[in-house]
């Protein structure tokens, strides 16, 4: 390596030939088709992408890029959400005040607004994505399974939106979640006001009561209070993101395996 051409090499060229550089970037500068593929395949982040795309696959007017946008917004919500967690305390005493402080006292008070508006945007993007997939018939064989995974992702997005709704702990939040969580009480068999709730009983002892039904498991009490706030917080910040990420991995993987984006089959 060390010959007279060293003098004439550019600084970038010399850096790209150091052992450190070569240990990180295995493939070198891609100069042909194979090397271009290897660059994608050898990088953990890039390998999520297909190594090559059909030209029509990047047509915006066909896909609207709504799936990609949903994921991008999810990433933005993850980043801003983690930042909000540094200030927000999920207790009846502090929650509402912390939300106000996040807006008025914390530097970059717009962070909470980004999270809030991003949440609205993600719900809209996911719905539009589903609408596009339906209208282009992209749910058809062999993509039926991925459609079902997508339906689960839609429900998880709704649940993330629902659990996040309570956290500001204002009147709108409390009563919206009161109304929403009462639906869990109407679950068949395991909700007190649902059909068949009296079937799970031995003699006079009814096992499905306001203190032991599906609604109770969701909000941790008989009404929306401290326990509900904490449960929704944990679900919103840890539980549901964890589950939705697993389903997203499967979803993106199957997009590739079932023929790539928007290709006719």
């Amino acid at each position, binding site marked *: 390596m060390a010959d007279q051409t060293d003098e004439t090499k550019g600084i970038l060229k010399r850096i790209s030939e150091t052992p450190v550089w070569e240990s990180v970037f295995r493939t070198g500068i891609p100069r042909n088709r194979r090397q271009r593929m290897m660059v994608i395949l050898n990088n953990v982040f890039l390998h999520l992408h297909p190594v090559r795309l059909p030209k029509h696959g990047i047509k915006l007017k066909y896909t609207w890029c709504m799936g990609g946008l949903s994921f991008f917004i999810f990433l933005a919500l993850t980043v801003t959400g983690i930042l909000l967690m540094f200030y927000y305390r999920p207790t009846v005493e502090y929650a509402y005040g912390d939300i106000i402080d996040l807006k008025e006292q914390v530097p970059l008070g717009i962070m909470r607004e980004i999270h809030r508006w991003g949440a609205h945007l993600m719900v809209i993007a996911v719905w539009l994505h589903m609408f596009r997939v339906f209208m282009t018939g992209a749910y058809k064989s062999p993509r039926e399974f991925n459609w079902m995974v997508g339906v689960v992702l839609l429900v998880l997005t709704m649940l993330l939106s629902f659990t996040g709704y309570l956290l500001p702990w204002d009147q709108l939040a409390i009563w919206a979640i*009161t*109304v929403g969580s009462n639906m869990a009480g109407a679950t068949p068999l395991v909700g007190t006001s649902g059909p068949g709730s009296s079937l799970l009983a031995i003699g006079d002892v009814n096992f499905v009561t306001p203190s032991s039904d599906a609604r109770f498991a969701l909000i*941790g009490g008989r*009404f929306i209070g401290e326990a509900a706030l904490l449960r929704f917080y944990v679900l919103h910040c840890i539980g549901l993101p964890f589950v939705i990420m697993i389903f997203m991995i499967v979803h993106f993987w199957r997009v590739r395996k079932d023929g790539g984006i928007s290709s006719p089959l």
Partner: protein
Amino acid sequence: MGENGQPQNTAQTDPVVSKPVTRAGMEIASPPEGSADTAAVDRRSFIKWLAVGWSAFAAVAAGYGALVMRFFFPNVLFEPKQSFRAGFPEEYEMDKVSERFKGKHGVWIIRDSEKIYALSTVCTHLGCTPNWLENDNKFKCPCHGSGFYKTGINFEGPAPRPLERFKVSLDDGGQIVVDKSKKFQQEKGEWSDPESYLVV
């Protein structure tokens, strides 16, 4: 691959060679007949133990699942008790709606010319808390506009049935005791139950 980079398909090309040959050209050592290895685990007992193993695993996993479910139902609730003392009957004015226990217990205590009854503050539409409007002489829910008379009967808005009443009784000292664990619904004809009101 063999040493020269070619597959050595000697078993196919030369029928005389009967020993199986791997692609790496190494012979597979077949165990001697009736050795300890083959006698210990035959197919039947392997599948049997496989079934036993997976059944045990599934049982333990189901047990953990049940424990996790149970985890979400705490033994102690830090909420106001279902049953509470609400003072003496004389403390309640005739034809007035008392909001004294609305905030803590979710109960209005109402006295009319002949009785005292305890009305639930949970709207029968979707569970919000209506407001008592003294001037309009009605309960009005801010969420979706359901209206109820002082008796609890619904007359406007989406509420499908009257507000519920709770069990009221007098303790030894003459104080009113409201028991929220026992409710009375008008549409089931339960408001005529003597436990649902106090004669004064």
